[in-house]
């Protein structure tokens, strides 16, 4: 098997995703041409809804990394970053985007036209250190961009108290004032309420889509998880709702008709940590032995329902919860979530990606591994890899480990190979 490989997708609607991705990047460039302010921001927070509500264009440098990985641009970006003196031990997203903005950013040949330069940088305080540092690097690279230094309490989901929420809401209001001041766009609160409603609808659809994965055989596997793109870039828009409705319909139809991702589904797997963006084909590797990656940790981050009666509080809450839920900020909650998913999706085994690039998601994994074994009797295997750097990944080792793991699961289930 190759080190870099795209996944095989079975959903009709997953193919429509390509169009959506192209449209999104076209829209970003179009916005820039029209003079609509372009703001770069980290994902998984409530700022995206504010941007759409204020007619500003959000851009997500973190999402650009999987795109670079898919197009094979990452090694070139890494070379640039290495040359600047950054350690190879840093998160691959940081190394990729740093190389991109200092290297091929304005190269004609960049797919999708690349990213339009930012007018605004939403520089986070909170979230993980690498994301914070990515934005410090961007601030230096784009000195003309207006910088909003955001601040967000870093607290486990189960420990959120009123003072955390109050401060997060205060920050939301400060962000709105900042955006109004630097762009002249005003916040229309009715429009915001609409956007939050759409965002919540997308989450509801997401939940519904995920719920069909309970079916045996499952109609949707991790190989199609690219649909997450709309949750990252389009939350709060009709586009996301329409797309997810179509996905829901297709998934529902397949589930009810008993059409699985593969014909003979024998082993149901759970995937923990970020995928290997340069090799999404790995998800198909399990299939030759009847294995399907039915569920994964980070998809849970998108199923946070919003209190549409209180839009600002809802967005503040979303900002407080999204990242902790999938990282080491809320190990207990995350563990709970993984166990719940494994129960609900009838998981036979878990694949834990020990991700050299992402310390915050990797920390806590061993606790989860133990809980899976002790509380559910679900065995797991550790795969040493990296979500961006294929130098930290060995296909041969992956195959050996997965083969042995699958054999063990077969035996455990009393199946014959």
């Amino acid at each position, binding site marked *: 098997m190759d080190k870099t490989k795209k996944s095989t997708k079975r959903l009709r609607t997953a193919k429509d995703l390509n169009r959506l991705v192209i449209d999104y990047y076209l829209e970003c460039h179009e916005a820039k041409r029209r003079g609509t302010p372009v703001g770069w921001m980290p994902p998984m927070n409530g700022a995206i809804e504010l941007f759409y509500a204020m007619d500003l264009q959000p851009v997500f440098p973190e999402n650009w990394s999987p795109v670079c990985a898919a197009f094979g641009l990452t090694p070139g970006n890494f070379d640039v970053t290495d040359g600047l003196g950054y350690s190879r031990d840093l998160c691959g997203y940081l190394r990729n985007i740093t190389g991109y903005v200092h290297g091929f950013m304005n190269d004609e040949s960049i797919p999708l036209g690349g990213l339009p330069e930012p007018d605004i940088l939403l520089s986070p*305080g909170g979230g993980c250190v690498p994301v914070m*540092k990515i934005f410090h690097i961007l601030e230096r690279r784009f000195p003309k961009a207006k910088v909003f*230094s955001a601040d967000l309490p870093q607290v486990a989901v189960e420990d959120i108290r009123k003072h955390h929420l109050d401060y997060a809401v205060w920050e939301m209001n400060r962000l709105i004032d900042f955006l109004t001041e630097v762009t002249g766009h005003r916040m229309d609160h009715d429009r915001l309420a609409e956007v939050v409603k759409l965002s919540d609808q997308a989450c509801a659809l997401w939940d519904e889509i995920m719920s069909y994965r309970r079916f045996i055989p499952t109609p949707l596997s991790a190989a199609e998880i690219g649909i997450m793109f709309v949750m990252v870039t389009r939350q709060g828009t009709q586009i996301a709702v329409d797309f997810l409705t179509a996905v829901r319909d297709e998934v529902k139809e397949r589930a009810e008709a008993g059409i699985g991702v593969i014909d003979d589904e024998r082993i149901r797997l759970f995937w923990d940590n970020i995928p290997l963006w340069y090799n999404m084909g790995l998800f198909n590797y399990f299939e030759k032995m009847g294995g399907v990656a039915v569920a994964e940790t980070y998809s849970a981050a998108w199923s946070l329902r919003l209190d549409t009666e209180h839009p600002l509080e809802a967005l503040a809450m979303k900002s407080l919860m999204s990242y902790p839920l999938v*990282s080491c900020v809320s190990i207990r909650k995350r563990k709970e979530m993984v166990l719940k998913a494994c129960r609900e999706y009838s998981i036979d085994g878990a694949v834990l990606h020990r991700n050299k690039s992402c310390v915050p998601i990797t920390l806590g994994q061993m606790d989860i591994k133990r809980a899976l074994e002790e509380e559910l009797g679900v065995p797991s295997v550790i795969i040493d890899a990296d979500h961006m750097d294929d130098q930290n990944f060995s296909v041969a080792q992956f195959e050996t480990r997965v083969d042995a793991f699958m054999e063990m699961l077969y035996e455990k289930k009393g199946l014959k190979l």
Partner: protein
Amino acid sequence: MPSQPAAPFYEVLKENERVTPALSGERYVGYFCTYTPIEIIHAAGFTPFRVAGGLDSVSLADTLTPNFICPYMRVATEKALRGEYGFLSGLVQGYTCDVACGLINIWKDNIGGDPCHLVPLPYNDNEASRDFLRSALKELIEKLDRAGGCFSEERLEHSLSLYDEIRRVILDLYDRRYEGSLPFSAGDFLTVIQAGYVTPPERYLGLLKTLRDEADHEREDGQPPSIPVLVSGSLVEEPRILEIIEESGGRICADDLCTGFRQWSPATGSGARPLDRVIDRHMRRFPCPSRSRARDRAPLIIDLVRRSAARGVIFLFQKFCTPHLADYPILNEELKKERIPATVFEMEETGIMEGQLRTRMETFFETLGERDG
């Protein structure tokens, strides 16, 4: 060999290894890094105890952590799993880096303690963020009290006066270090500082004052024939590392380390009530990379270089330490603009790699020597 004035501090550390702190009658609360409000822990009736890592191999910690986090946290976890921190009542840590955050949660479920608490810290300084910090500190006080603490404003006033005084004395010693008149080595200085991590502040302050008096008597005259340098980076736990730098031709005249200057400056905060002063000092701390921008740190480090007449900067990082590694290229660029030479060394879990460090340092000092004639 420790120098005479620093000897009692070596003693304190040794004593701490021999007699388990549990027998001292103190109730200890551990912490990893100095963004933890230790004055509040002390005011609640506990003795703050900075958890150490050190030079050790790791096996037990492999069951809980990946091998690509800083050696400090790996070894500290190893020791905790071996039961060496069993005397700690709890663990409190301000949110600094992702590893510190993850490890608090991992310790909570695998090692235990009450409270086991992560204090979220604001990144910005304004009225609302100060209010938020106040609420976060009050939450900590609540947790400490629930674990048997006895916090009161008067007690905090007292704890603050102790810690402020400790910081003032140490900053005095730093002033002497800038002049080159400190009668002990950087390794000794680190030991002096580390003794404070395990000693109740009343006793530590006494030792420090004696040290300062002795330092006054033993003032060294003139600059020693070595090259003054500033060391910047993560926490350095091994005095040996600093000794090697000094043996290779350097003299550490200033630092920007987690186990150094960053935890002392400023000595005190302003405000009417003691909690206001804790908050104010926190907000005005000499910044650390996990909480600030390289852009803002660079001028402060350059100031320290000028003030101490350092001729170069040595970056010492814990391997895999993201905040420091991510700031390094920008800092280095800023130093270059000021024509300040720099070199970098990463400290690994398996030891300090003495040979490699020595070679790197000797080369660096040679270049500095040639450059400055």
